[in-house]
C-alpha cells in the first residue's frame, strides 16, 4: 500500500507558483528523501500534506485517506518535525510533551523519558530558554512518542550538532526497520544518500527526477580529480570523447566526469607528471548539481 500518494498537486500563492503538478508515491517502510534548494516547493508540499495549506488542484492521500477531509484522522498516525520550531516559550519541555500526548489516546507517558534521555534533553527547562538545537530535539521527541506510522521531517538536522545528527539518523533508521515510513526534506545530500531508499528532486515547484537512489545515480562514469604541474599537457593527453563537465579548478587542478575505459585513461596519464589523483563514484550531490 502507498502510505503517501500525491497526485498532480499544484499550489499557487496568488499568482506565484509554490508547486506545479507534482506526483509522488511512497510505499510503507520507505525512507524518502525530498531534496531541492530553498524556495523550490519542499515546505509547500509538506504544508499541503498536513493541511496547513489547501491544494489549488490535485490531491494528496496519506494512509489511504484524503489530506483535506480526513486531516485529523490521518494525524493520529503522523509525526511531524518542522524546519523551524515554534512552541510556547513559557511552557516547560515536560509540559509541552505531555500537552502533545494529550492529543492521542492510550499512549504510555514513559515514552517521553525514553526519548528525552536518548537525545539528552532537559525536561525541566522552559522552551524559551532552549537553544535552536534543543528546540529541534523537543520537536523530534514530540513527533515520535506516539509511535507514528509516518514521520514527516522538514530539514530535521537544522541546528543539531554532528553527533546529535548521527543519533537522529540512527533513531530514524531504527524506526524505519520497525516499519515506520519516513518522508524527509533535506539539504544534507550525504545523509540522504546514506539513509534514504528513494528520492525526489524538486526545482522551481516541479519534480525533475525521482526514484530509487541507486538507480538514479549514474554508474556509467566516474568523477576524476587530478593535480598536475602541467595542466595544458595533461589536457592534450585526454580523450575528450569520454569526458564531460570538465572544470579547471585552478592552474594545477582539474575535475571531470569520465565515461570511457579506465585502463586507457591511466595509460594516457602515465606520460604526465601527476601529483595527486582521486577517482570517485558519482554522489547524489553530483546528480543534484547537474540540475542546478
Amino acid at each position: 500500500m502507498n502510505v503517501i500518494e500525491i497526485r498532480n498537486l499544484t499550489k499557487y500563492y496568488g499568482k506565484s507558483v509554490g508547486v506545479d503538478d507534482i506526483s509522488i508515491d511512497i510505499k510503507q517502510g520507505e525512507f524518502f528523501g525530498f531534496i531541492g534548494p530553498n524556495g523550490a516547493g519542499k515546505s509547500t508540499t509538506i504544508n499541503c500534506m498536513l493541511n496547513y495549506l489547501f491544494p489549488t488542484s490535485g490531491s494528496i492521500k496519506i494512509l489511504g485517506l484524503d489530506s483535506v477531509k480526513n486531516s485529523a484522522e490521518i494525524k493520529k498516525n503522523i509525526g511531524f518535525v518542522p524546519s523551524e520550531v515554534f512552541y510556547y516559550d513559557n511552557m516547560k519541555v515536560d509540559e509541552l510533551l505531555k500537552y502533545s500526548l494529550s492529543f492521542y489516546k492510550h499512549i504510555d507517558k514513559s515514552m517521553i523519558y525514553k526519548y528525552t534521555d536518548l537525545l539528552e534533553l532537559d525536561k525541566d527547562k522552559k522552551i524559551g530558554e532552549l537553544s535552536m538545537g534543543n528546540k529541534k530535539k523537543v520537536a523530534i521527541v514530540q513527533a515520535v512518542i506516539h509511535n507514528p506510522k509516518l514521520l514527516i521531517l522538514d530539514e530535521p538536522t537544522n541546528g543539531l550538532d554532528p553527533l546529535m545528527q548521527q543519533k537522529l539518523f540512527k533513531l530514524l533508521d531504527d524506526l524505519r526497520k520497525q516499519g515506520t515510513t519516513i518522508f524527509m526534506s533535506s539539504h544534507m545530500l550525504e545523509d540522504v544518500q546514506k539513509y534514504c531508499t528513494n528520492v525526489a528532486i524538486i526545482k522551481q515547484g516541479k519534480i525533475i527526477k525521482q526514484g530509487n537512489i541507486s538507480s538514479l545515480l549514474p554508474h556509467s562514469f566516474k568523477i576524476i580529480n587530478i593535480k598536475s604541474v602541467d595542466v595544458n599537457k595533461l589536457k592534450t593527453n585526454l580523450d575528450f570523447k569520454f569526458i564531460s563537465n570538465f572544470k579547471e579548478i585552478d592552474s594545477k587542478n582539474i575535475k571531470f566526469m569520465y565515461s570511457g575505459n579506465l585502463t586507457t585513461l591511466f595509460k594516457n596519464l602515465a606520460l604526465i607528471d601527476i601529483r595527486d589523483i582521486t577517482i570517485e563514484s558519482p554522489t547524489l550531490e553530483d546528480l543534484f548539481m547537474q540540475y542546478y
Partner: protein
Amino acid sequence: MFISEFKNNIKGLILWVIAIGFIVTLFVVLYPVAIEKMSNLDEMLLSFPKELIKAFNLENYDWSNVLNYFAYEYQYINIASLIFAAMLGANLLAKEEINKTIQFVYSKPITRTKIFLNKMYVALTYILIYNVGIYVVTSVSLLLFIKDQNIDYILLGKVYLGQFIVQILFIFIGLFMATIFKKPRGAASISAFMVLFSYVLGLVSKLTENLNFLKYFSPTEYMVASNIIKNNGYEIKYIFIVVLVSFALFFISINKYKTKEYVI
C-alpha cells in the same frame, strides 16, 4: 486542549480581575466623598442640555442610592470590560497564528472546528470568571464600606449579567476578526477599536432623535448599568440582537476558519 489553553492565558485574566477589582473598590470607597459633592452636581446638571445628560447616562443621578452612583462610574469600566472580551476572542485564535504555534497544534489529531470551539469555550469561561470575580469584589467592598444602605445585590448581579451578555457578542466579534484576516496580527486591536467605535456611535445616537436608530448598531448601549438599575432588568430586544448577531458571527467565523490557510 481546553485545559492547556485555559492555563496558558490565566495570568492575563487574573491581572484584569485584580486591576478592575481595584478600581471598583476605589469607586466604592470614594462614594462618601462623591455624595458630598453631589449637591453641586445637582445644580450643574440642571443647566446642561438634556441630550448631553442622556449621552453620559446621568439621567439617573440620584446618588443617594449607592447603586446609581456605582452604575454611573461603572460605565467606563464597562468599556474596558468589553475591550477585554473583544481582545480575548481575537487573541485566543490569532496568537496561535501570530506565534506560529498553530504549526504544533495542527500537526496533532484535532480538527479546525475543535480548535475553534476550544478557543471559544475558553473565552466564554474566562468572561464568566471575570464577571463573577468582579461581582464578588464589588459586593464585598459594598458590604465593607457602605453599611448604612440596603443594597440590592441581585440587581447588582443583573448589571454584571448584562455586561456578560454584551461581552459574549464582543468575543464573537473578536473571533470573527481573527478568522477573516489572512494575517491576523491586527485582529485584537481592530476588535478593541470596535468597542470604542460602538461607544462613540452610542453617544451620537443620543444627541438627536433622528440618530436614535444608531443605538441598535452600538452594543455598548445595550446593557447600560444605569438603565438596568432604573428598569430592574434588560430590554429583551437587545438580548435578541446579541443572540442573533453572535450566532451569525459564530457560523461565519467557524466556516471561514475551516478553510483558512495557516501561513507559517
